[in-house]
């Protein structure tokens, strides 16, 4: 039988332990076998040689333009109400805090899954508001689908439950990362935090050195 002051002391100890556990266990993101906080893709996939149009209206080849750099590919659309702006804003915030030499080796490539509404000027205005260095790309539906297929990403489709010009597009939520050898090695599902990116970007840049 524990007396009243003893119970109070016990409650304080339990409370303190809970607080400590909560504080320590908050961000224990497990690492992949290769040491990334993202998900390893096995086997890695080559960046496809496909031709897109960038936000200056110029042709842009996925494999050629991203050669010898870490490329983070994300498929989304500018009317996306939730995950697209969160992913891009978080990437911009992380890159903003990275050293210049590391930052220069990382490209963020946003590929629209809604080419009908995402005109080149609209895509430029939207992508560049996050970071002037981000690349926005558009192409025909067939080229976008070919890129998704080659990168192991489920095909985006127009949400049939939404009508008119305000329709939504269902698309994959993950960013896929290609290392400097042109191989897509890691996927980052929606939910990846800035601290996870900060952990993985230097590893992605250093991969293969």
């Amino acid at each position: 039988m524990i007396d009243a002051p003893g119970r109070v002391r016990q409650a304080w100890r339990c409370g303190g332990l809970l607080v400590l556990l909560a504080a320590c266990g908050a961000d224990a993101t497990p690492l992949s076998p290769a040491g990334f906080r993202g998900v390893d893709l096995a086997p890695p996939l080559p960046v496809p040689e496909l031709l897109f149009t960038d936000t200056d209206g110029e042709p842009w080849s996925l494999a050629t333009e991203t050669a010898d750099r870490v490329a983070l590919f994300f498929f989304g659309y500018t009317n996306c109400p939730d995950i697209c702006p969160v992913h891009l804003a978080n990437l911009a915030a992380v890159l903003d805090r990275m050293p210049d030499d590391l930052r220069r080796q990382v490209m963020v490539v946003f590929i629209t899954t809604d080419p009908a509404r995402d005109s080149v000027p609209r895509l430029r205005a939207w992508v560049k508001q996050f970071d002037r260095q981000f690349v926005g790309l558009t192409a025909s539906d067939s080229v976008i689908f070919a890129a998704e297929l080659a990168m192991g990403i489920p095909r985006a489709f127009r949400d049939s439950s939404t009508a008119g010009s305000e329709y939504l597009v269902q698309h994959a939520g993950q960013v896929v990362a290609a290392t400097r050898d042109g191989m897509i090695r890691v996927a980052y599902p929606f939910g990846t935090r800035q601290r996870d990116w900060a952990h993985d970007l230097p590893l992605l840049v250093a991969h293969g050195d």
Partner: protein
Amino acid sequence: MATSTFQWWCAATGLPWNWQWQWYPGIHIALLALAGGWWWLGTAHRWSHRPWGWFAAAWLILLATLDWPLGKLGAGYLASAHTLQFLLLTLLVGPALLKAIPAEGWARLAPEGSRLHRLLRFQTRALAGLLVYNGIVIATHLPAVVDGAMTSQLGSALIDGAWLLGGMVLWWPILAPPAFRRLTMFGKIGYLFGVTILPTIPAMMMVFSDWPLYRLYELAPRVWIGLSANADVQLAGLIMKVIGDLPLWIATAVIFFTESKQEQHRDGG
């Protein structure tokens, strides 16, 4: 794709933000119960007067804090709105609710010799107030607690309840009727100064942390694209420290001037 979902109490949904009004029946029921309880207490204990002004202020601020839009913004979208809710509940609603019960009401609610009287008397001590209030502040701002609780309606309601309780505990040593023993003027000033110290830790963590503290707000759909998750958390830290300290400093000044004046009167008389 749904743009809203029925909820009794504001909690994070992960749905995109929109400015469409949403009804949270649980909040309105709780507020009606609070008004009913206050009315019943005054009638049952035959208060000679009802502090209408204090109760109306507490009730209206409570409504504005918990209900749409601030409640929804704070529950699932903006850390800064969440912090504003914390400040409104602890610094305005808490003391206003204490003042909404007159001294005679407190005496009848907790008659001398009762357990409640002993507890309330104990809570007028500065150390007791500091420990309980700061415990609530720290516990309800831990990332694991915020990220876990705010996604459930019950968890979100518990956080709101904890803050309301925290606000009443915080102001009790200052506002308790004389029957419960009160701090001296310098005791009150020292106590209020002490209250400002510990919340500096979560506030500074929010302002200076390299990465957003809370997963919930970092990954929440954006309300405005111009307000990034990082800026939102930094704003939350600034609100907590700068705006949060203001009422405490004002209270300190009020206590100093009114009580020194009373002392002068006593010395003169």
